[in-house]
């Protein structure tokens, strides 16, 4: 990224490939078409940012992770064999970059659950309007705190599904795990998140 305070030369935003498929754009990029890269970037920057932001909690960090993820993806395109969608593959790369960045900067906020284990006896979480009375930013912070209680694998799985908008199968493809493992992680994550959010919202 260019330094924040400097005015960079405006990069052209490609709008010439709005109907092209990812594979076509990747082939065009491999043939030297710069605008294909820009179109792919424009196409997936938003979802990549949401995933990175949810994992890191800060705009600047999320942008760094997005940049690093796109950079790794485009410099290792030969590793992408088209067996999954480009989006699925890219989000795996971006989310791993975000996790690495979070570790490097020591900003993980692991909150101990004090030995708590979810049970069916826990207060049921009524989701009809759980965010009532909470501002969007407050809810975002609350969700971040809740996600921080999850083990990394569950957190990454949940975020790829929720914010990355990947289906269970796509999450399984992205993480090279079985769909059953995806299900297990999501449902266990749901149990923890449900109880955490219930307790916090009640208070």
């Amino acid at each position, binding site marked *: 990224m260019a330094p924040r305070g400097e005015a960079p030369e405006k990069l052209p935003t490609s709008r010439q490939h709005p109907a092209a498929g990812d594979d076509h754009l990747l082939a065009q990029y491999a043939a030297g078409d710069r605008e294909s890269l820009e179109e792919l970037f424009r196409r997936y920057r938003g979802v990549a940012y949401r995933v990175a932001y949810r994992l890191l909690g800060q705009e600047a960090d999320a942008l760094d992770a997005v940049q690093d993820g796109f950079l790794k993806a485009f410099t290792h395109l030969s590793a992408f064999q088209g067996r999954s*969608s480009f989006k699925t593959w890219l989000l795996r790369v971006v989310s791993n970059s975000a996790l690495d960045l979070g570790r490097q900067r020591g900003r993980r906020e692991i909150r101990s659950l004090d030995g708590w284990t979810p049970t069916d006896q826990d207060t049921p979480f009524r989701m009809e309007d759980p965010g009532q009375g909470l501002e969007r930013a407050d809810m*975002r912070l609350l969700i971040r705190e809740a996600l921080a209680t999850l083990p990394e694998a569950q957190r990454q799985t949940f975020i790829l599904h929720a914010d990355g908008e990947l289906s269970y199968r796509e999450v399984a493809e992205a993480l090279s795990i079985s769909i059953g493992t995806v299900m297990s992680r999501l449902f266990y994550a749901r149990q923890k998140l449900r109880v955490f959010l219930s307790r916090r919202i009640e208070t």
Partner: protein
Amino acid sequence: MNQDPIPQPEFQKPESGQEAQEPSHAGLDHLKNDREELAAWLNKHPEEASHLEDLQALVSLCRQSEPSQPSDETWDHVLGGVIAGIGPSAASVGHANPVSGSRTLSYFERGLRSSLMGAAAAAAFLLAVLLPHEKPPTGIEPEIPFLGRGETLPIVDASDVDLMSMEGDDTRLLVVGIPPVNAPLVLVGHGDITLLSAADEYGTRVQMSSGPDAPMIVAPLSKQPGRER
């Protein structure tokens, strides 16, 4: 521990094409694609069926609280960094690169760089003038003998581990601080001991084994009160 940045997905999937463009963020349409897998999984885990709504509600909650997207100008900076990082291959396609150099600087690095340069110069001057010229303490980080002097491979660090509970008898094993020794403590080595006498005065006997640990001296401890060894 770094993740593999370049995954190799194992499933087949049809070409995504346009379906991936600007996804509709408010909906849960992609769940429809999972119907079969979901049904199969719930078949095995019927107890989770009642909680499916919770999961979908949580997903919706996340999407309702999604962060605002950065400005177009910010995205231009990010894209410029990507292109700069790609380097010659990007340059070869004629892009006007707004960032010089092959290494991209992060927001964090850039934000700190200019301010730290001035602060570091002042701090270095003050340190040179004000601090006594004593060698600072070293060796805070213990060397891990079995890994040699090469690069260590941290699996977890202290922040990754929460000690939830410990049995009372095990608390004596809890080391607080940095263990002084990270390898077996060798008090004497082979060849450091010369056996001068093997008299059986106190019930001592000598065993000779064929291994490198010979000889072994065995002495009963409580046969001779006041003369235990």
